[in-house]
């Protein structure tokens, strides 16, 4: 096993303010445009701007799209099923964060 020397690198933070075009989002999630469009149709992600060439997606879409992609691929669920699953998963994450807070208060 070879070890390369460490280099210091900084990246882009994909937060709410970060904007991606449709093709950037496709590349980030390694999906063809049709599949990303299907996710827009399903309401999983919402673009800003008029018309596909003007569309901008927020950086947080990357994680959502990737999770839907993985669930479809690995669990054999269809798009509406994966969309429902990530909504529920995000709700669970939110509730777990709240639960941790209330448990600390005890």
């Amino acid at each position, binding site marked *: 096993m070879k070890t390369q020397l460490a280099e210091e690198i900084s990246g882009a933070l994909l937060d709410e303010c970060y904007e991606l075009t449709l093709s950037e989002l496709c590349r980030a999630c390694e999906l063809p445009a049709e599949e990303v469009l299907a996710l827009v149709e399903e309401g999983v992600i919402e673009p800003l701007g008029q018309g596909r060439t003007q569309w901008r997606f927020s950086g947080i879409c990357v*994680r959502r799209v990737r999770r839907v992609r993985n669930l479809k691929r690995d669990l054999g669920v269809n798009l509406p099923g994966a969309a429902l699953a990530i909504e529920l998963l995000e709700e669970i994450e939110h509730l777990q964060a709240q639960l941790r*807070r209330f448990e600390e208060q005890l």
Partner: protein
Amino acid sequence: MVFNKTMEYKDYYKILGLERDASQDEIKRAYRKLARKYHPDVSAETGAEDRFKEVSEAYEVLKDPEKRAAYDQLGSGWQSGQEFRPPPDWDQGFEFHGGGFTEADPEAFSDFFESLFGRGGFSPGFGGGFRREFRARGENTYARIAIDLEDSYRGATRQITLKHSELGPDGRPQLRERTLNVKIPKGVTEGQQIRLAGQGEPGFGGGDTGDLYLEIHFNPHSFYSVEGKTVYLDLPVTPWEAALGAKVRVPTPEGAVNLTVPANSATGGKLRLRGRGIPAAEPGDFYVVLKVVPPPADTESEREAYRRFGDAFDFNPRSGMGG
């Protein structure tokens, strides 16, 4: 195939919780159930990802009657984790379609799997990952990184070590380790991703290198808790501070601040420090949640103080309960 090294035997039936005579339907059901439970995008449990890989590998073999028959031929006398060396002629008479190529990510599979079924068409930018068609650009890669809440307030540099396969000079894949010092930008929140351009898998035929995505998670903190950009602190106060009001010193991840507890505060009362949550582009708020802590009455004078305290009030907190 690599036959000259030893590795641990994997009991694929046991991994899926099945008997060796399980039907193909039972195998599929068991896999689906475990995959849902341990999928890294579903489960936050530690070790879920490793468990998911193990389950996928087991299913990869058992779902395919050819591979299953070959695996079964090894016999049932093996124990999980036992040192394993495949018999030199073990796969004679079996033909694996596509050279034993797998649809799942073959790089995620164990040496044990590899020794039996090969890596299948390994070449950079081809075959690994979820799409099998030729692509010149290298694959994106993903990793999780755990940071402290304070790192998000100040920004930080974190060292991460990544393992990845590369073709060696002999044409065989070899495991390489790479250490990166990554700048964690100020203001990151749980679950956000950092994209490190050009740090993914190398491209093929002059194609670009893929990107590395780092998903941020916070280590649990001993007294702060975080929800999105909002940070909470449970602050213990004495009954007299809560009743009479007080100025108290309160820790925040940016340093201690003076805070006024208003008179007649109670447990659960929230005091907001606007904009002192996670310093994202739009900063979150910091909430101090009061928790009134009565002192124990251990000495006679302390008990006397509680008695006088009780005499001074006409107060029944259970009045609404019909008590």
